[in-house]
């Protein structure tokens, strides 16, 4: 059964909500925020569902659909252990009913919609019940209609009641950060609501530890990993859906009696002042802030090196127009959109359609978009974006475009192109760890800042490690290298040459030792000698080599570095996804203890960027697959050939 259902504008205004479970242990608002920030804004709308792991309680599945013409989002949430077969149908039906019969631009009271919703839900449940029974147990008497009726009745009886349980729990901040750290607690029980202060604290902690930047997409990636990766999960979903559903039905049905309907926005008068406190999730935020924010900041400050100056500066005209256009579509003022064109008779509808087409404002259908989308997908793949990712991104953009209206005199092609510009920039613009700033902080503690470099063979790990050493040295930092590639012959000597040229000390213990121990000793020596930064070179390894992946995981576990960089070459195509997904999964799953689990890839070093012309797709693939930003770009053979990623020029290359 559903836990809650929400309708809101793309601008973020809640229009209508209905909550069924009284004893929800998390705030629905938190889950919705996590969905928006961790999935929909990360261009992952093509995923089948989003998993939200509350701090306590069972993991939730959230499914959604858009009405792009009106700029609306519809979300249904239910316990992940239940695989409800009717949710997609429910979402589509509810969307169409709401859009055509209820939506009023600028309206915020949709209490009348509750009846329609309940009827639709009942319908969908009954149909799914019936079809399942027909398929699974043809011998048994069909009782689907009965079950549906029962549910509908329960729903109505509780309508309008408002419990404080869910409202007390949780803040409105970002969340899901410990989705990976905690094993997914799966339970059906109706527990006591969470106290308001506890949920805020963990966020603060996380934000502090990571030096301020929180990256939801990474968290999303983590939770994906926890589920066995996107592929594994979808297989599970498809393969065992039916049986699972059959099993769960029994456990779920007793719940039906306990179920209560609750509005987040009360019965009627959605805009009245009385309603405000009910949606007040700020108390928790406030408490969290107070506990974490008591001490004034003692640190010096921040820098972000991925921030390309070019980015903030001049825009060419072409870009300017594109950006303005994208504003009108992708991230456009959806809330302000006008109602759908109503057809009047066949001829009338034909005529108006014609007229609208001339005026360029008819709602786009999937068919209208298809040619342009295919074009885009082909282009992305030509630019070396991994196929899997090109498909996902295209699907996600498509979902945000279907139903939108063309502004006058804009062709579909241009419209789609602008949406892609917006979407790709969105994917590539990530908040990165602030290395120089974090080094200073660490220095204040009297400890060296430790960076581990990992990646497959021959991608340029040591070379780019040396470039980064040079860059750090230029900013007056004392660097030490650690040769922990005890695997490949010649690796230590290679690093020794770099160390000599750079004039920095190298810690090495030859080849026979355990790399994790070498790193630990190197860090100890660095601390003794007052070095600021330790750069740890590791052996290249193929992502499928389990013993070596385990060793890497152990090295990271033992030494808890401040930064884990993945070095990948810009030449890589479809393998980029596999590499990143498997490295991340290994760091997560193969950690010797669950306590430190989850130090995954913080950033990407993209090498050999000078050799690829406009085939810059690996940048997109790697960022999308890992959720981590490209922090350094290696673009040549000398120590100074290290750059930040210029998002704008990458986007331009991808789409030109």
């Amino acid at each position: 059964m559903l836990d809650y259902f929400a309708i809101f504008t793309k601008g973020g205004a809640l229009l209508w909500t209905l909550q069924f479970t009284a004893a929800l242990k998390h705030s629905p608002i938190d889950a919705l925020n996590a969905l928006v920030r961790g999935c929909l804004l990360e261009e992952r709308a093509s995923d089948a569902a989003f998993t939200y792991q509350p701090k306590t309680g069972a993991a939730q599945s959230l499914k959604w659909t858009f009405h792009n013409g009106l700029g609306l989002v519809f979300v249904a949430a239910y316990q992940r252990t239940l695989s409800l077969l009717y949710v997609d149908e429910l979402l589509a039906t509810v969307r169409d009913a709401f859009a055509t019969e209820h939506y009023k631009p600028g309206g915020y009271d949709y209490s009348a919609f509750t009846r329609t919703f309940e009827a639709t839900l009942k319908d969908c449940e009954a149909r799914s019940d019936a079809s399942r029974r027909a398929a699974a147990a043809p011998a048994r008497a069909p009782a689907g209609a009965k079950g549906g009726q029962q549910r509908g009745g329960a729903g109505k009886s509780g309508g309008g009641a408002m419990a404080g349980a869910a409202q007390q729990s949780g803040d409105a901040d970002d969340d899901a950060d410990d989705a990976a750290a905690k094993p997914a607690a799966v339970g059906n029980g109706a527990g006591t609501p969470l106290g308001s202060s506890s949920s805020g604290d963990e966020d603060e902690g996380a934000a502090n530890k990571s030096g301020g930047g929180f990256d939801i997409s990474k968290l999303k990636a983590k939770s994906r990993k926890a589920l066995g990766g996107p592929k594994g999960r979808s297989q599970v979903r498809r393969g065992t859906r039916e049986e699972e559903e059959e099993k769960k039905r029994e456990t779920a049905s007793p719940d039906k009696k306990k179920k209560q309907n609750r509005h987040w926005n009360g019965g009627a008068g959605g805009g009245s002042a009385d309603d405000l406190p009910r949606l007040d999730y700020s108390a928790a935020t406030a408490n969290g802030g107070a506990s974490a924010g008591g001490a004034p900041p003692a640190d010096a400050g921040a820098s972000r090196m991925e921030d390309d100056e070019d980015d903030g500066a001049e825009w060419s005209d072409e870009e300017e127009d594109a950006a303005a256009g994208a504003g009108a579509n992708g991230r456009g003022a959806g809330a302000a959109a006008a109602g759908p064109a109503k057809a009047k008779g066949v001829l009338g509808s034909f005529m108006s359609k014609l007229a609208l087409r001339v005026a360029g404002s008819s709602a786009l259908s999937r068919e209208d978009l298809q040619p342009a989308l295919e074009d885009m997908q082909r282009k992305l793949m030509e630019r070396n974006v991994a196929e899997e990712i090109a498909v996902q991104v295209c699907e996600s953009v498509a979902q945000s475009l279907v139903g939108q209206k063309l502004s006058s005199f804009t062709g579909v092609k241009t419209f789609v192109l602008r949406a892609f510009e917006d979407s790709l920039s969105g994917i590539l613009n990530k908040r990165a760890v602030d290395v120089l700033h974090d080094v200073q902080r660490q220095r204040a503690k009297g400890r060296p800042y430790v960076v581990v470099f990992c990646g497959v063979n021959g991608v340029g790990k040591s070379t780019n490690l040396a470039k980064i050493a040079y860059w750090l040295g230029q900013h007056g930092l004392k660097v030490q290298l650690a040769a922990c590639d005890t695997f490949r012959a010649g690796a230590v000597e290679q690093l020794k040459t770099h160390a000599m040229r750079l004039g920095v000390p190298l810690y090495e213990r030859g080849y026979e030792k355990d790399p994790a121990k070498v790193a630990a000793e190197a860090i100890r020596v660095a601390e003794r000698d007052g070095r600021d930064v330790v750069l740890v070179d590791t052996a290249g390894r193929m992502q499928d080599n389990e013993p070596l992946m385990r060793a890497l995981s152990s090295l990271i576990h033992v030494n808890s570095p401040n930064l884990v960089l993945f070095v990948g070459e810009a030449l890589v195509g479809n393998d980029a996804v596999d590499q990143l997904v498997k490295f991340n999964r290994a760091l997560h799953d193969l950690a010797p203890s669950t306590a430190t689990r989850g130090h995954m890839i913080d950033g990407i070093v993209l090498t050999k960027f000078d050799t690829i012309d406009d085939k810059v797709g690996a940048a997109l693939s790697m960022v999308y697959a890992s959720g981590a930003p490209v922090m350094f770009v290696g673009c040549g053979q000398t120590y100074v050939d290290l750059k930040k990623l210029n998002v704008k020029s990458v986007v331009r290359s991808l789409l030109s």
Partner: protein
Amino acid sequence: MEAALSAVKGLLPEAVKQQLQQAIDGGLVPRSAAQHVPPELLTPEGLVVALFTAFFGFILLLLVLGPRGKKRGSTVVLTGPPNSGKTTLFFQLKDGSLHNGVVASMGDNAATVALRPARGAPKTAQLLDVPGHHSARHHLEAVLKDAAAIVFLVDAVEVTPHRTEAADMLYEVLTHSAVHRSRTPLLIACNKMDLEMEAHSVDFIRKTLERQLDAMRKTRAASIGKDAGGGGGAALGPAERPFSFAALRSKVALAPAAAKTGSLEEVVAFIAANV
């Protein structure tokens, strides 16, 4: 041309003057030339001549600026990190109500709103609430070009844990070329002041942000990609002195706000004064 421009400045209606000022600030015309009023303009004959030149100057200016010049500087952009209260502020100003509450924004909210400042005449302003999420950064850059004024919201409760993020975004706004060039007025609204026990003071927030921006100015200058030059640094004032908002060329003010409860006197006054 120079005389024409200064004459235009004196004689044309407010809106046009603003455009001209932007053109000047935008580097189309040397500032010193435009600001210096030649003495011959003070005589009646001079005025007649100036009127003519002004007319042609204006035509020329329109040609130079193109149609985009008109659009520029018409919206008040609400920005700031996620969860700082932008959307709440938007609806509070637009409807005086928060309706059913908010969730994280995926897209803009735009509306023309009527403002009744405590002092002075009622005004209307075009508000634009832009999502704070990093994926909308590209879009933020684009809309800042057309900003008449910027309200940058900071969560007064969460300043300390989120200071890097807030300063990061503020850095982006302050060093944005159009914001810097046209000296777009900026108000840092310290929001959620209704939570009296938890919220930090405006002064604390000012100091926190100043300290953070000071450090960023240094590390950004040291950041990789030497080709970039010191454009960003210049926007943040002289490097030898510690960073302070007061030392900036553009007007940057801080004020308390509570979007949720609607105590927004200073925000309303700021917007009204800049549209």
